[in-house]
C-alpha cells in the first residue's frame, strides 16, 4: 500500500471506529436484551419473541403511539408554516434584520428541560402569566396542565416554540440557495409578490420543505425532555410519548428486556422515515 493510502484511513478510522463500537455494538446488545425477560436485579432468561408479541396487546404502547402521532399532526404543520413565514420575513430588508435572525435561532439552543420547567410556571393555573394575560381579556382560568386536552396543547406549544427554529434554519438555507436570476427574469415579466412566491419560490423550495418536515417528524418521535417536567406524561398517561414510555419501562419499572424491544421498534419506524427523506433528498440534491 502506498503511504497516502494508509494515511487516509488514519484520518477516517478514529471517528468511524468510535461510533461503530458505541452504536453498532450496543444495538446488537439491545437486540439480545429484547429476547430476554431481564429485569435489573433478577436472573435473565430467554423468552424468544414474547416481548414483541406483548407490544401488540399493551394498551400503553397504543396510547403513547397515539399521543405521539397526534402531537406530530398538530405541531409539525404549524412549525413548518411559522418557520416558512419567519424565513421569508428574514429575507426582507428592515432595520434589525441581523438581530431578528439571531432571535429566530435562539429557541433551538435553549435547554429543553429548563424550558419544560419554565412551562410549569408559564402555564401555572393560579396566577401564571398566561392565565393572567388571558384574564385581562376576559377569558376564565384555563386548566393548562390538569386537563388532558389542555395539557396536550401546552406540551405542543412548548414544542412549537422550540422547534420552529430548527425548520427555520433549514428553510432559510434553502431560500438563500435559490438561484437569483429566475426572480429577475420573472420581475422583468411583471410578476410580483404573491405570484412570485406561488409559482417560483414554493415549487423550488418544496423538496427542502418536505425533507425538513420529515426530519422534524423523526425528531418528534424522540420527544421526552419537554414533557418530562411539564406534565411527566400526565394527567394520567394522556401526554405520555412513546420515548417516555420506553424510558419508564426500562428505568422506572426496570423491565429492560421489554424496553429494549420497544426501542428497537422505534428504531425501525425512524429508519423507514429516514429512508423516505433520503430518497427525496437524493432526487434533488447531489448528496
Amino acid at each position, binding site marked *: 500500500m502506498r503511504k497516502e493510502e494508509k494515511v487516509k484511513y488514519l*484520518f477516517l478510522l478514529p471517528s468511524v471506529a468510535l*461510533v461503530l463500537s458505541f452504536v453498532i455494538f*450496543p444495538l446488537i446488545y439491545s437486540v439480545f436484551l429484547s429476547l430476554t425477560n431481564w429485569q435489573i436485579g433478577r436472573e435473565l432468561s430467554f423468552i424468544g419473541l414474547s416481548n414483541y408479541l406483548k407490544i401488540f396487546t399493551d394498551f400503553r404502547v397504543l396510547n403513547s403511539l397515539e399521543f405521539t402521532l397526534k402531537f406530530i399532526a398538530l405541531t409539525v404543520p404549524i412549525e413548518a408554516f411559522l418557520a416558512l413565514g419567519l424565513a421569508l420575513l428574514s429575507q426582507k430588508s428592515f432595520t434589525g434584520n441581523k438581530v431578528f435572525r*439571531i432571535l429566530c435561532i435562539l429557541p433551538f439552543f*435553549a435547554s429543553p428541560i429548563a424550558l419544560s*420547567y419554565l412551562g410549569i410556571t408559564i402555564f401555572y393555573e393560579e*396566577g401564571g402569566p398566561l392565565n393572567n394575560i388571558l384574564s385581562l381579556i376576559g377569558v376564565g382560568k384555563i386548566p393548562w396542565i390538569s386537563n388532558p386536552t389542555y395539557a396536550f396543547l401546552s406540551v405542543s406549544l412548548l414544542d412549537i416554540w422550540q422547534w420552529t427554529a430548527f425548520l427555520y434554519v433549514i428553510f432559510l438555507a434553502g431560500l438563500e440557495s435559490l438561484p437569483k436570476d429566475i426572480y429577475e427574469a420573472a420581475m422583468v415579466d411583471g410578476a410580483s409578490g404573491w405570484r412570485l412566491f406561488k409559482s417560483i419560490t414554493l415549487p423550488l423550495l418544496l423538496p427542502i420543505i418536505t425533507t425538513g418536515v420529515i426530519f422534524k417528524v423523526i425528531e418528534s418521535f424522540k420527544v*421526552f425532555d419537554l414533557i418530562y417536567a411539564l406534565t411527566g406524561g400526565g394527567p394520567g398517561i394522556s401526554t405520555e410519548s412513546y420515548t417516555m414510555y420506553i424510558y419508564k419501562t426500562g428505568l422506572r419499572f426496570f423491565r429492560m428486556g421489554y424496553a429494549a424491544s420497544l426501542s428497537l421498534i422505534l428504531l425501525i419506524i425512524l429508519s423507514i422515515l*429516514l429512508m423516505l427523506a433520503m430518497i427525496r433528498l437524493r432526487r434533488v440534491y447531489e448528496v
Partner: protein
Amino acid sequence: MSRKDFSKMLKKILIYLLVLIASVWLVFPLYWAFTTSFKSKVDVFKPLFIPFIQYQPTLDNWINEITLRGDVIMTGLRNSLIAASISALLCTFLGSMAGYALVRFRFRRWSNKDILLWFFSLRFLPPIALALPFFAIFMTLGLIDNVLALIISYTVFFIPFATLVQYDVFRNIPVELEESAMVDGCSRTGAFLRVALPLSAPGIIASFIICFAFAWNEFLFALVLTYKNSITLPIVIAGAEHSQGVDFWYICTRAVIAIMPPVILATLVQRWIIRGLTLGALKR
C-alpha cells in the same frame, strides 16, 4: 402621496408589525425567566411584566439560591462544563479529520458518498435506543455516575454532526495551498494540521459551539447515566424538590443559569451557525 408610495409604506408597516409580533413570541419565555428570577415572592403570581415600573426587582432569589443550593449548582455547572467542552473538543477534532478525509481522499470499498450518508443517518438515531444498552454497558464497566461515561456518550452522539459541518467547510477550501505545502516537503498530516485546519476555523468554531450546546442541554443520557457526583445542570434542575407548591423563583433562576451559556455562545457566532445547522448536506 401617490398610490404606489402608499402601498409601499403599508407594506413596510406590515413587515415591522410582523417582526414585532414574532420577536415578542420568540423572546417571551426567556424574558419571563429572567424577570421572574428578580421578582419578590409577593409579586410572582401577579400580572406584572415590566420591572422597575410595575414592581421593584430584588436579588433575594439569587442570593437564596446561591447560599442554600450553591454546592449542588456548582457541581452541576462543573460537570456540564467538563462533559460539554471535552466532548465538543473531541467531536470537532475527530470530525475535522473525518470530514477532511471524505473531501480529499477517495474511498473504494464504500464510496465517500455512502460514508457521508451513514454519518448523516446517525444524526437521527433515537437516543432512547442507545440509552438502555449504554446503561447496561457502563454499569458493567463501573462508569455509572462518572463524567467519562457522559463524555463518551456525547462524543459518539455528536461526531456525525461535526463531521458533516467540517466536510462542508473543507469542500470549499481550495486544495492548491495544501498541495504547494506538500511540494515544499510537508507531509499529508502536516498539510492538514498546518494548512487545512487553520483555514477551516469558521467550521471549527461552529461545530464546537453547536456540539457544546447539544451536550450542555442533553438530558436523557445524563438522567440515565448519573445520579450524584457527576450530575449535570439539567439533572440539577430536574432534581429540585419544591417546598411549597411550585417555587417559581427558583425554577426561573435555574432556568436562566441553564439556558444562558449556549444561547450567549450561539449569539456570538450566529453567522457560522446557520451554515453549521443546515447539516452540511443541504446544498445544491
